[in-house]
């Protein structure tokens, strides 16, 4: 996985709460067997609306999404994360993420930065007042920054220590776990015999 220390890119204000995974990418786009090519499905239903934020310049070239609370609720589809990444997003800022979405982001290398609700509100105001303003998501210092002068936003964000460390180091989770293969062997040796198996 690619290392992530900090990223600066055009901020995209998505003034919606409860953006569920069916909104991020509808099921009919989930048929690909690769991790790429999902950008067309991103927010597919909303992209038909010319007024939708990603249909407007300069937001179309955005790479930091700023969304309302409960982002990524619903299905476990990691395709939601891939669709955001395939489109060009590197980070999503929201006051609250659904658990599975946050987990998937951490595995796939998309930063899910959880901030205070007020910070999102101020970012939305700023990004709408000055389209094209860039947002910096700094994983090293856990801060999100945007704009200059009196309306500038700078605040800390939450991300769990372990995910942050893995993203900073660009580490593959499976590799880390396989280094503990002895522990897994020992655990398996002690499993009760009544546990079911699928092959006989």
């Amino acid at each position, binding site marked *: 996985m690619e290392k992530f220390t900090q990223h600066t890119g055009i901020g995209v204000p998505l003034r919606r709460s409860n953006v569920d995974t*069916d909104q991020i990418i509808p099921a009919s786009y989930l*048929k690909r067997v690769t991790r790429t090519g999902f950008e067309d499905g991103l927010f597919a239903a909303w992209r038909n609306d010319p007024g939708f934020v990603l249909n407007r310049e300069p937001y179309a070239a955005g790479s930091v999404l700023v969304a309302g609370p409960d982002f990524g609720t*619903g299905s*476990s589809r990691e395709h939601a994360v891939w669709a955001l990444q395939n489109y060009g997003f590197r980070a999503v800022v929201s006051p609250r993420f659904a*658990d599975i979405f946050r987990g*998937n982001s951490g595995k796939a290398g998309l930063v899910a930065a959880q901030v205070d609700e007020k910070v999102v509100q101020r970012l939305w105001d700023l990004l709408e007042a000055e389209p094209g303003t860039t947002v910096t998501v700094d994983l090293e210092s856990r801060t999100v920054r945007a704009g200059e002068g009196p309306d500038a936003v700078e605040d800390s964000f939450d991300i769990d220590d*372990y995910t942050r460390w893995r993203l900073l180091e660009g580490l593959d989770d*499976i590799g880390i776990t396989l280094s503990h*293969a002895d522990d897994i062997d020992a655990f398996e040796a002690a499993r009760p015999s009544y546990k079911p198996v699928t092959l006989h």
Partner: protein
Amino acid sequence: MPEEQEVEIYRARTLAEKVWEEHVVRRADGEPDLLYIDLHLIHEVTSPQAFDGLRLAGRRVRRPDLTVATEDHNVPTVDWDKPIADPVSRTQVETLRRNAEEFGVRLHPLGDKEQGIVHIIGPQLGLTQPGMTIVCGDSHTSTHGAFGALAFGIGTSEVEHVLATQTLPQSRPKTMAVTVNGSLPDGVTAKDLVLTLIAHTGTGGGQGYVVEYRGPAIEELSMEGRMTICNMSIEWGAKAGMIAPDQTTFDYIEGRPEAPKGADWDAAVEHWRSLRTDADATFDKEIVLDASTMTPFVTWGTNPGQGVPLGGAVPDPADLEDADDRVAAEKALEYMALEAGTPMREISVDTVFVGSCTNGRIEDLRLAAEVLRGRTVAADTRLLVVPGSARVRLQAEDEGLDVVFKEAGAEWRGAGCSMCLGMNPDQLAPGERSASTSNRNFEGRQGKGGRTHLVSVPVAAATAVRGTLSSPADLEPVASGEEV
């Protein structure tokens, strides 16, 4: 580590904590626990990239014997004996078949007697048992918690992780108890209970928690009803839902193909009986509900928390205190094309869907048939009955339920997820409205522009007959005297 248990001082624990502790492979400061996974369920949509990852890294599936795959999300529910017409869907299903073959994973493909929705076949085969850790690349894995298993949905990277290591790093969640006192009145089902709960908590209310459902109303439920409740845990954001195993659980499992037998059965049951929250254990949060005041419950909006009793009306966003809720309600009403104040019973639907991992089990089909026997589906309404698994279909046909459905004018389909997520051709057309026994009413979930009302099975069946949201109590008695 088991050998350390002897010196461990007694500490009261919840059911979830007990199951968690039994699966910790490795614990280290500042790291999530590494949990062992007892059962990994696979389907065609969230697995191809995971198998690809294994291939790229030259890794094997560590425990194919703890893994089982089926085809459900994307498969057709008509002509299932013919090649899948849509080439992209076909590729996805064929990819799963190739992967299962290459990595030695047991697969129940379309046409197989054990094929079906992944959360229906686990319990049906007896693979889902108390005290297990169960994962699947699907958020409704929470269903299996009805057996006292710790079961949760994972993403594709995690699917790859479990395939390669049979473990998963997990941070310890908080625990919550939902105690449901009283008894559900006649005609009110587990589905109504869980929809009522979600309307009460909101879709984020369970965020970060493993929830244990307990209390007399839960204990009275059949395993099917318990699965319906646990299934929808994810709809209020919970990581997992669990119900302590009891005699109802053991009776359901005993004799199933993969259930323990002989001495193993006795050992298993003895252990399963210990899987109860200790009397003096504490939860991080508690909610108490009264089942006896519950009524049939339906959704009006675009998330499962936007619901009201069937006897109620579409709410007025202006009455909502929270500004975000107000905006969300306005957007939902616009999408749903509903006017505030409209009685729910006056809303007419185009399609009724009975099925999904929430309500696609044999008990659900029996309930639907009971309402439909001797009645007919309303003129402009389409009723799709989609069994959750091939076994459920065969069992229903054995009992003659398919005849009841067909005589009523319903479409009797093959097993799969079908219109729950509209990935196969079973979809709503733009603007069409459905009453659905599934679990999600998100915008476009059942087809682009489709509008979904989540309902229980009896409400779905009665709605099909009247063409408007209804409960069986709204129906004229069947005249012919056929009903016994």
